[in-house]
């Protein structure tokens, strides 16, 4: 188990991580309510559990109602109930990672401020420091201690996205920030409300940071009302059932999540799973990509999670702090493995050790720019989703819960004035209608939305046109945007807009990971990744003529234009004028399994419904109504792929254990006195038990544009990116597909531990 050095992980340069003995530094005069009823009646437990769930939902509702903010209305926040020592008892079905900082922030407050200024009944703390508790500065945390019988019983907390907190770009996503001094303001924890009374001086200080202080004041009021409401309700609950009984129920919920997670982990063989993802353009137009790596080692009932292999941080906005990285991991565990606990994931963290290397892109040190990099949290969640899904593929019990990663997040911001002279400057959140990833038993959901935030929604077109001076020319489900596979990823969206009654309009682009260059959701277990998205402006189109002739364009590309302007993943303001069309794609989810295993009837249906193009059907699925041999020819062509030259030092003696499926197409089995990894379809030996199954596979490296509708990454980055495909040499089934920087060694993906 790692024991973070408290001096190094203090939140000053490295992120704050509480040491094992953090409680020793909490002032003795702060009495913790640790009484737990010895016997907890199961009915009391269930009734209290339900009430905590309901209180937490009403907490969220209080926030959206009071704030009325369009940002918070899209549920860009999350709220939690925590124990006295900041174990998460209840979280909400909104953006999963968003309130991951609550336990960290609260422990920081307890460790550092329990003596002065102290923690008292009626206090509320505020913090947006990414090295302590905030995923980025825009997601501000409010935490209220709950006192029962004069002792600290627990905490109510929420974190929500603000309109503006300063920095060099309105809205708080500066893509051209070299370091944190260009970012929105950073506020380490401070006590905003003291014994029930707002500190007017600190409120003024907080609001002074914003370009939109009145709007931030409304959200401040809403978020404070939320924690107050939850606090009152929990105090009432304690009054009714007894604090010790409520605490016993809370502990049991946390223990339950831990136990359920533990049991699921035990059903997975020991080993290490690894995922490599890239993040493009540390600064706009820098034309490079950077590497991240996530490794999860599972041993018995524990996970060790490491970011070793991740590039060092550089100037720019490609980094995320520790809290965001860890929150991405627990967020995905919550929706993938702890859904029965209804977002009460708290106990799972007890089974996790983080081995985070500070100063890297996924654990940046102060003073990196972080506010504009928050979308890379989605990249990390997708990495974790891929890793966890592959792990679950090795467990019969868990295989049904696999979901391939969804898309990266595309976030265009429209800024300008309408023809009444009113300012607008908000992001279009259509990224929340991305396709969801394929499952082990079926297709991903078209425009189903991200798995990490089930309830996040998009606005109606008519609402968009009320908020922005635009005409939305089309908003369509986007063919071929889902990854191909035995089960395909859900398709995303394609949206085209043109200014209408605007005085001026600028487009700012923000993109997570590789979303605008190389891929969206990874493919799983032989499935293909979903193609990257794009932002494009068709300048000076013949739209006016077309419209005067009573016609509308089907896409931005079936209309003549003076110029086609591709916007990069990150850009800080490109004007959009009358007659221009701005189009962006919201990506689909990754595919699952070999596309050639897909039922041809499903392919035919997808063509009929316009979900895939006939070209994709022919090139990827080998489906051609005119040519019954297309599929077998495509399969046979894989025979020409190259054999990897690898050593085979991984021989493990036969164990006599029954066969164990560890992948859609790979099984661990005894063969000639040896435990091997073999093709589940044809029995071909791929590797020794503790080897990489890719070692025995055939491989080919092709252009990323092989993926139907994928753009060429060379448009934005100079690093050569390739699609690598792996197939069983025996039956030529495609067992893996991934995207790599050319020259990178083959990604291992998984390696089982020899017992």
């Amino acid at each position, binding site marked *: 188990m790692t024991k973070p050095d408290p001096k190094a992980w203090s939140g000053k340069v490295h992120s704050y991580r509480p040491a094992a003995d953090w409680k020793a530094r909490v002032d003795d005069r702060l009495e913790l309510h640790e009484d737990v009823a010895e016997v907890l009646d*199961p009915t009391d437990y*269930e*009734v209290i*559990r*339900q*009430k905590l769930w*309901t209180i937490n939902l009403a907490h969220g509702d209080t926030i959206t*109602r009071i*704030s*009325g903010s*369009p940002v918070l*209305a899209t549920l860009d926040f999350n709220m939690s109930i925590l124990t006295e020592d900041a174990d998460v008892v209840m979280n909400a*079905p909104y953006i999963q990672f968003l309130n991951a900082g609550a336990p960290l922030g609260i422990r920081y407050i307890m460790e550092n401020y329990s003596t002065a200024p102290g923690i008292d009944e009626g206090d509320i703390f505020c913090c947006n420091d990414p090295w302590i508790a905030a995923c980025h500065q825009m997601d501000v945390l409010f935490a209220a201690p709950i006192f029962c019988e004069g002792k600290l019983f627990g905490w109510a907390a929420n974190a929500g996205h603000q309109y503006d907190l300063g920095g060099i770009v309105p809205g708080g996503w500066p893509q051209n920030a070299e370091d944190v001094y260009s970012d929105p303001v950073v506020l380490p924890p401070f006590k905003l409300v003291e014994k029930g009374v707002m500190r007017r001086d600190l409120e003024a200080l907080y609001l002074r940071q914003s370009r939109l202080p*009145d*709007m931030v004041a*409304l959200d401040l*009021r*809403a978020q404070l*009302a939320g924690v107050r409401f939850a606090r009152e309700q929990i105090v009432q609950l304690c009054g009714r059932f007894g604090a010790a009984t409520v605490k016993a129920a809370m502990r049991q919920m946390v223990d*339950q999540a831990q136990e359920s997670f533990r049991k699921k982990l035990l059903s997975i063989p020991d080993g290490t799973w690894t995922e490599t993802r890239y993040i493009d353009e540390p600064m706009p137009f820098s034309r490079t990509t950077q590497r991240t790596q996530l490794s999860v080692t599972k041993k018995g009932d524990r996970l060790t999670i490491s970011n070793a292999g991740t590039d060092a941080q550089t100037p720019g906005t490609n980094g995320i702090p520790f809290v965001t990285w860890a929150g991405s991991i627990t967020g995905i565990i919550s*929706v*993938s493995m702890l*859904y*029965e606990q*209804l977002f009460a994931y708290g106990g799972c963290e007890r089974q996790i050790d983080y081995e985070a290397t500070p100063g890297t892109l996924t654990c940046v040190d102060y003073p990196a720019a972080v506010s504009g990099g928050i979308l890379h949290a989605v990249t990390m969640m997708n990495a974790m989703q891929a890793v966890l899904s592959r792990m679950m593929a090795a467990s019969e019990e868990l295989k049904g*819960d*696999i*979901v391939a990663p969804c898309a990266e997040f595309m976030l265009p911001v429209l800024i300008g004035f309408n023809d009444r002279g009113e300012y607008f400057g908000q992001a279009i959140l259509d990224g*929340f*209608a991305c396709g*969801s990833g394929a*499952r082990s038993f*079926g297709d991903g*959901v*078209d425009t*189903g*939305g991200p798995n990490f*935030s*089930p*309830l*996040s*929604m998009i606005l*109606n077109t*008519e*609402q968009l*046109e*009320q908020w922005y001076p635009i*005409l*939305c020319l*089309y*908003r*369509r*489900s986007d063919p071929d945007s889902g990854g191909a596979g035995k089960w395909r990823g859900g398709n995303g*969206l394609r949206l085209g807009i043109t200014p209408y*009654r605007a005085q001026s309009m600028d487009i700012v682009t923000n993109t997570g990971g590789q979303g605008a260059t190389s891929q969206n959701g990874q493919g799983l277990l032989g499935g293909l990744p979903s193609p990257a998205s794009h932002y494009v402006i068709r300048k000076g189109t013949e739209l006016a003529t077309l*419209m005067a002739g*009573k*016609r*509308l364009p*089907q896409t931005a590309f079936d209309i003549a234009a003076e110029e086609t302007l591709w916007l990069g993943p990150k850009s800080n303001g490109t004007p959009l004028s009358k007659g221009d069309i701005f189009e962006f794609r919201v990506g689909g989810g990754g595919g699952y399994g070999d596309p050639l295993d897909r039922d041809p009837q499903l392919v035919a249906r997808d063509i009929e419904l316009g979900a895939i193009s006939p070209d994709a059907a022919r090139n990827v699925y080998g489906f051609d109504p005119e040519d019954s041999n297309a599929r077998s020819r495509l399969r046979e062509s894989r025979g020409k792929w190259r054999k990897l030259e690898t050593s085979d030092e991984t021989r493990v003696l036969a164990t006599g254990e029954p066969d164990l499926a560890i992948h859609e197409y790979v099984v661990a089995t005894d063969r000639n006195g040896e435990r091997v990894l073999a093709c589940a379809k044809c029995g071909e030996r791929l590797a020794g038990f503790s080897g990489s199954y890719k070692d025995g596979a055939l491989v080919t490296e092709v252009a990323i544009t092989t993926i139907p509708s994928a753009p060429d990454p060379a448009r934005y980055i100079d690093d050569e990116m390739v699609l690598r495909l792996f197939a069983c040499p025996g039956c030529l089934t495609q067992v893996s597909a991934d995207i790599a920087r050319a020259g990178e060694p083959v990604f291992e993906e998984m390696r089982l531990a020899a017992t």
Partner: protein
Amino acid sequence: MQYIVGVDIGGTFTDCVVLDTAAENGVAVEIGKASSTPPDFQTGFLHALEAGARGHDLTLQALLRSARVFHGCTVGTNALVEGKTARVGLLSTRGHIDATFIMRSGARLKWMPSQYIAHVAKQTKPEPLVPRALCEEIDERVAFDGAAVVDLNEDLAREAIVRLVDKGVEAIAISLIWSTANPSHERRLRDLVNEIAPNLFVSISSEVSARVGEYERTVATVINAMIGPPMRHYLEALEGDLAANGFSGKLQIMSCAGGLIDSDLARSLPVLTIGSGPVAGLIGATNLSLSKVGGSTNVVTADVGGTTLDIGTIHHGVPIRRPTASHGQFEYFVSTLDVRSVGSGGGSIIRAGDNALKVGPDSAAANPGPICFGRGGRLPTVTDAAALLGYYDPDYFFGGRIRLAIDPAREALSELGATFGMSAEEAAASAMRIVNAQMADAIWLTLTQQGYDARDFVLYGFGGGGGLHAGEIARELGIHTAVVPLSDLAAGWSAFGIAASDALVNESAGMSMASPFDPDIINEQWRRLEARVLDKLANQGIALEDIELSHHAELRYALQTNQVAVSVEGGDYDAGGVERMVAVFEAEYERLFGQGSGYSAAGMQLTSLEVRGHGPMSDVAIENVEMGDAGADFPGKRERDVRWATGMQSTPIFEGTRLRRGWSAEGPAILEFPDTTILVAPGDSAAIHDTGSVVLTVGGKQ
């Protein structure tokens, strides 16, 4: 007309109440009940009517000659649930045909159970309402300001319509972007459809539900088209049968908006009938609340059925409304009373969770039903738990129509309880407590979301399980009074609500107007909406002098999303009228969301204007209803052992129908009515109110 008839068709039974408004002691009520007769529901309708007529010693024909007939119609709902709807073609603005497929992404999960929301791998979207092959895009475009930025391309539109007709569609839904701001293209398209295929059912979104938001408006329009043809077919058959039996009046249909519409309007806007059943119950409760039964006009209703708990709210005697309803994951615009369903009821299944029993949200429903029904149910339900605790007389459940088999229920609960070291009875008590807390939590969340405090309300519990849960739900919520309304009529409660309803017509205009508001535009809209309402009510047979118009506006602050509907003055608006409208909005906003929660500096948006017209259909008031006092003071029918939260106690059982007004008793007691059983826990008390309702006074929290 001497008689008022209310008919409510359910999946199993058709209930009817016949009110004789010329009876000696005020209004005399008779109930008629018959089995429902799908798919030709009109047959069961007439059977129930006949039974109700018999109660008044009348023939069906004699009744129909001097009756008004009000009808709660589930034909549309059933057609939707069973997928027996018309084949619909959809016309939308080019570029926006995918709205009903996209379903606003995660918004589709908003009203789904939390278990479903959390389990991402199992989430999916429902089959589309209109398959892609029957969706056609139309070249035309209206902008938010009503400007036609692309004129309707009639040539291409004709081709699209012909394609749909050739594919055999039975109805066409038309929903264009910003038709709320300018409906001319939708209307013209309807003309084209009528020209090309004169017999097709057509619905256009600006008339079905003129609210801003194309997804929910399109779903409303599509659903309207889907059930249009079956509704037309049913109403024709029913009206034919009624006419053949001497009925010469106009059939009135219950709408989810909380009032009656005539059958012509129900034919063109059948979407208004969906969900009207639970709404009728809420209307009955509203009526009763005006007589302050329970001592307050603030009432929260719990309609406890086999599968769901339906929650409604009445504030100061006015039921709370909402602008949307849901069909599975599809949400659509319809002006409806706010009735929310949660999966909690008598059929809710009890299971062993990790640390405790879990109840619902899945239900054994009517089939296979609870174990104790002996119809093949294998999983224990709330009803099984209640039976085991002694709450039900096994020989007098549902008036003796179902005999309860207790032993198999005990066996199953004993097995479940063993996991947690509980006896069968302890497991039953545990499940009962959990489901009561669950119901109370759902009500608490509803009230909290509506901006109310449960403690300011009284609870009305109805439906088959209302009496069983009302006392405990009230206790959980800190409510001291629970009412089981007109317990004698429990089964006919919805039918009664229908009979007690007024005519109600809404007309609304979706707007997108920024402040300062132009009174001329507002006046123009008021006059247009008023004319439409008056016209419809005149068709419904309401005399002009009886019509009461009310005006409602929906506004929001320009930079905030909360839309708030308020009652405003009618008449001609000038600057002062606009100012007063804004003041009403600002006051209501503060009441709902707290002082200082609105940001007025950036101005406001007027999003909708609505005119509602009320017209009396009868002057029946609940307090005049004569229930008949069956007997003198009736002693405890018998005693039986009942397991209360405080322990096992021998409990007097009363035959409800024989209790006089003014009768009262201290708990523990059980009141048995043919269709509902009322628990009076130790420490609580029960009294029979003048209206025949049972009023429970609930002690403190246990």
